[in-house]
């Protein structure tokens, strides 16, 4: 379980995230926000890469930044970054083997975990190909595969569906849905449609503040609101007050 308590994060001297709190269990949580809203910053902070100015991030009760259980907490979280540019001279399998080591997967089970991850993202046939010869969608799937290696409790996906064709998008959605069955998946995106189809719960981030946190169906406000007719997108736009900048 992921628990965020009054999280404030600075980059440079500017505070980017202000006092964010939420709790997420198994299932998919959509993180919706316009460009620059702070989605990537939040995910990086959840992954243990950006120490907060104040507040804390807990995974199964262990703080990601403080205390003796820090290492155990970082083992439980895996990030799929927005940009995937791992050195392209590695083949998919080599990349996954390396990541398995980095993720401290025991040597005995490493090969099996790599095979399982390849199968999960349907990249078995591309296992011997170099990363720099993969299409954008395949590369994204490879990026997701590495996050699955250590079977994390919390999976953080940053714009994992952007730049994909509709077929690949549908495939990834299917994959994420199956992943979310047993773990907490946080999917950051500015593509409303993806979140609508995947997440039962949505958090709306705007100018570094959490504007909304609740069931996807409720974004547009209480039932009967006229905006709800337009679905999540209209609800989202009305929520941020039409301010898309």
């Amino acid at each position, binding site marked *: 379980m992921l628990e965020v308590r009054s999280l404030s994060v600075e980059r440079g001297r500017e505070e980017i995230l202000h006092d964010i709190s939420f709790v997420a269990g198994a299932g998919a949580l959509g993180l919706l926000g316009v460009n620059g809203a702070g989605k990537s910053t939040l995910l*990086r902070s959840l*992954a*243990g*890469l*950006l*120490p907060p100015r104040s507040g804390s991030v807990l995974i199964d009760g262990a703080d990601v*930044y403080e205390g003796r259980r820090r*290492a155990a907490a*970082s*083992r439980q*979280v*895996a*990030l*799929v*970054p*927005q*940009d*995937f*540019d*791992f*050195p392209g*001279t*590695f083949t998919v399998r*080599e990349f996954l*083997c*390396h*990541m398995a*080591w*980095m*993720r*401290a997967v025991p040597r005995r089970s490493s090969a099996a975990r790599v095979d399982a991850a390849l199968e999960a993202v349907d990249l078995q046939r591309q296992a011997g190909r170099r990363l720099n010869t993969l299409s954008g969608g395949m590369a994204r799937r490879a*990026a997701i595969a*590495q996050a699955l290696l*250590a079977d994390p409790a919390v999976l953080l996906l940053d714009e994992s569906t952007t730049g994909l064709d509709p077929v690949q998008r549908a495939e990834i959605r299917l994959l994420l849905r199956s992943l979310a069955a047993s773990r907490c998946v946080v999917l950051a995106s500015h593509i409303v449609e993806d979140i609508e189809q995947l997440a039962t719960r949505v958090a709306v981030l705007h100018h570094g503040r959490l504007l909304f946190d609740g069931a996807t169906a409720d974004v547009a406000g209480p039932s009967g609101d006229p905006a709800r007719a337009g679905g999540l997108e209209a609800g989202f736009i009305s929520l941020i007050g039409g301010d898309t900048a």
Partner: protein
Amino acid sequence: MRTLIRRSSTVGFVPVLVVVQAFCLLQRGTPWLGEWDWTADWAGGVTVVTGPLLAGCTAFEVLRWRTAATWSLLRQTPRGGHAAWLCALPVLVIGVVVHVVATASVLVATAMAGGEPRIDTGFVLVVVLPVVALAAAASIGAATAACWRSLLAVPLAAAIVFGLTAFPDRLMLPDVLKVGGTTGSLVGLTWDSRQQAAALAVLVMVSVFAVVVMHARDAVRRGPASRSIVAASAVALVAAVVLAQSVPSSRLRPSGAPIRYACTAASGTTVCLASQTSRQLAWLAAQIIRQSEPLAAIGVRLPRRYQQVVPYRRQPDGVAPILLEPDSINARRGDARRVPDLLAMPALCAADTGEVPPPDEVFVARSAISAWLSVRNGLSETSDYRVEVFGEWLGQTAPDQQAWIRTTYAQLTACAYADVRLPESVVLP
């Protein structure tokens, strides 16, 4: 690890490393071939060039990883703390493998050429230090790239390592990063173990400091612990440098061990060369015996023993000196035309090595005898010496010419330099 090495950007650079390594080893020919210690020392000197190169390669490879957005992904993992050195290590491994293969090749070549392998602490350090120097160079490259994520870190890292190796005096640093590259024979010399220990200490501390700085820069949170580790390693580095300043800056010192000689004896003449540099013994002994025949024929009393002069060692009395040319000391054959000079100096006397040089007559007398011998041995013509002061004398065939040679040779052998008189026809200018 194997994958990391195979997929490293430096793999494409291996041919360049190999060519540079070979060029540096062979740029002055192979005067070291056949002499074990000199070969080992010379092979290590190549790091003056390969060190900066490796620093640049490391910086490039580290940048390739660090400038990727996925770098944060690696750092986020449980073993993220290893990411920093893990991307630099393959470059170092490649550099060390190229270096070790090159060093082993020249040592094997030397052993096959007759240089007898000699393994002691000094030798072990002289082959280990270049590897440590490469590690220091790679760490500097990695740290530079970690601190300055720009392609300019590549030439900067190379320049830092080159500056530290080639101009330590201008940076007021001890000359310890240069770990080899002696241009002359090591006969009679040995490595200064205090200097080697100081070099090892400084190189290790440079590597540790660079790695610590790199990790400190990566720390998600720079707490007092990481700051004190950086401070502690900086203090250790400064301490090692200060320690190194107090150690003699020369890498070599006269050897205290007894010199072993390889000798051959034939027709009552013994010829000895230091066994370390004895490759031309058979050739030289034959030349000495054959070329001294004209002297023997006119009744000159020749030395019974010829022995190589070793720096910092006293030549025993009654033993004729062999002074080998530095560039051909390990050649299988020397220059036959230089043998008459060797034969014209039957003793190394106090005056030859003292403050006051021997009288001019001694030099002219030696040259005249050498020329006479050279002409008798068919190595030159009388006319070659027309411009010399003894040119006219050489052309004479008077019987007193032979008498003069007999007398003078005896005086030279007895170190009676004050008694040496030139023939009447020879007038000093």
